[in-house]
C-alpha cells in the first residue's frame, strides 16, 4: 500500500478534438445543460505548422471540465483515414472487437436515480438518445455517443462502496501484478493467487474506519 499522501483533487479537464463545434456545443450545452465555463482563442504557434484553434470547456460538475479543440482549416482526415468503428480521434477497422473500441470512455457522475433519469430524458429528446441503460455491479449507467463519436456515460452509484471492497481491490491488484509477471496470465491464475492472498490477509483485516454495514 502507498504511504504517500494523496493530494490531487479530481479532474481538471479532459480534452478531445472536434470537427463539429456546432453539434458539440449543442450536445453538451443545449441538450445536457453543461455550462460553457472557459474558452481560449489562439493563433497558430510553435515550430510546426499549428492551426489557429478554439479550446472550449464545459463544466461537468464539481468544477471538473470536459474540453474540446477546434482547429480551423482541418477536417477529420488530419487524423488519418476514416475508421469503420471508433470516433473522430480513435479509428478502428471493422474487425476490431466492440469491447475494445468502447474500453476508453468518459463517465460522468450523478448523485442518484432521479438525476440519472433526468439526463436520460434530456438525451432521449435529442438527436443523441440513450443507447443503453445498464445496472453493473454497483453502478447504473446510461450511454450514448456524442456528436464526435465519443462513447459517453453518465452513472450513479447503486450504494456506497463498502470498506471490504477496498481490501478486495487491493488483493485483486496484488494478485494481478503477480500473475502478469509470470507466463500466460489467465483469470484462473488470478483467482488462485487471490485466494492465497485472502488466506494471508483477510482474517486479520479490520475496516480502517466505520463505514456502512455490509
Amino acid at each position, binding site marked *: 500500500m502507498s504511504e504517500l499522501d494523496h493530494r490531487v483533487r479530481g479532474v481538471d479537464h479532459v480534452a478531445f478534438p472536434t470537427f463539429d463545434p456546432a453539434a458539440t456545443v449543442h450536445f453538451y450545452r443545449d441538450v445536457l445543460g453543461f455550462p460553457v465555463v472557459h474558452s481560449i482563442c489562439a493563433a497558430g504557434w510553435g515550430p510546426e505548422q499549428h492551426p489557429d484553434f478554439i479550446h472550449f470547456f464545459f463544466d461537468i460538475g464539481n468544477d471538473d471540465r470536459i474540453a474540446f479543440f477546434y482547429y480551423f482549416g482541418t477536417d477529420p482526415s488530419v487524423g488519418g483515414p476514416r475508421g469503420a468503428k471508433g470516433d473522430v480521434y480513435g479509428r478502428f477497422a471493422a474487425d476490431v472487437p466492440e469491447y475494445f473500441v468502447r474500453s476508453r470512455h468518459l463517465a460522468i457522475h450523478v448523485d442518484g436515480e432521479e438525476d440519472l433519469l433526468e439526463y436520460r430524458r434530456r438525451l432521449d429528446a435529442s438527436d443523441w438518445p440513450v443507447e443503453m441503460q445498464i*445496472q453493473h*455491479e454497483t453502478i447504473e449507467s446510461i450511454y450514448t455517443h456524442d456528436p464526435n463519436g465519443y462513447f459517453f456515460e453518465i452513472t450513479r452509484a447503486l450504494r456506497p462502496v463498502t470498506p471490504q471492497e477496498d481490501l478486495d481491490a487491493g*488483493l485483486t491488484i496484488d*494478485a494481478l501484478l503477480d500473475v502478469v509477471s509470470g507466463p500466460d496470465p489467465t483469470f*484462473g491464475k488470478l483467482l*488462485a493467487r487471490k485466494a*492465497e*492472498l485472502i488466506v494471508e490477509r*483477510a482474517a486479520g*483485516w479490520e475496516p480502517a474506519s466505520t463505514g456502512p454495514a455490509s
Partner: protein
Amino acid sequence: MGAGLDGTGVVNTLYVLDVPENIAVPKVAAEDPAVTVGRLGPYFVISSDQPIVIDRRAVGARHAVWYSCVAGVAPGAAITKHDKDALRVEPA
C-alpha cells in the same frame, strides 16, 4: 488448502466477498449438504469435497453481479463452468 478433512479427498474452496449483491451466492451454495460456508474476514468461504455447483436462477443475480461474484478459488480447484445457468468449481 487441497487436502480433504479425511486427508484423502480434495477440498474445493471458493471465496466470495460479503457485499449486499453477493449475499445469495453462499446462501444458495449452502443448500447442498456437501457444502460448508464459513468466514474469513469479510469473505464467505464456500467449501466442499464434492464439486460445488451454484445455480444462477436460484441466486437471482443480475448479469454483472453474477459474472463478478468470485473473489478467489483456492489452488487445486478451478472454475469449470460460469455461464447463464451455473457456476461450477471442481478439482483443476
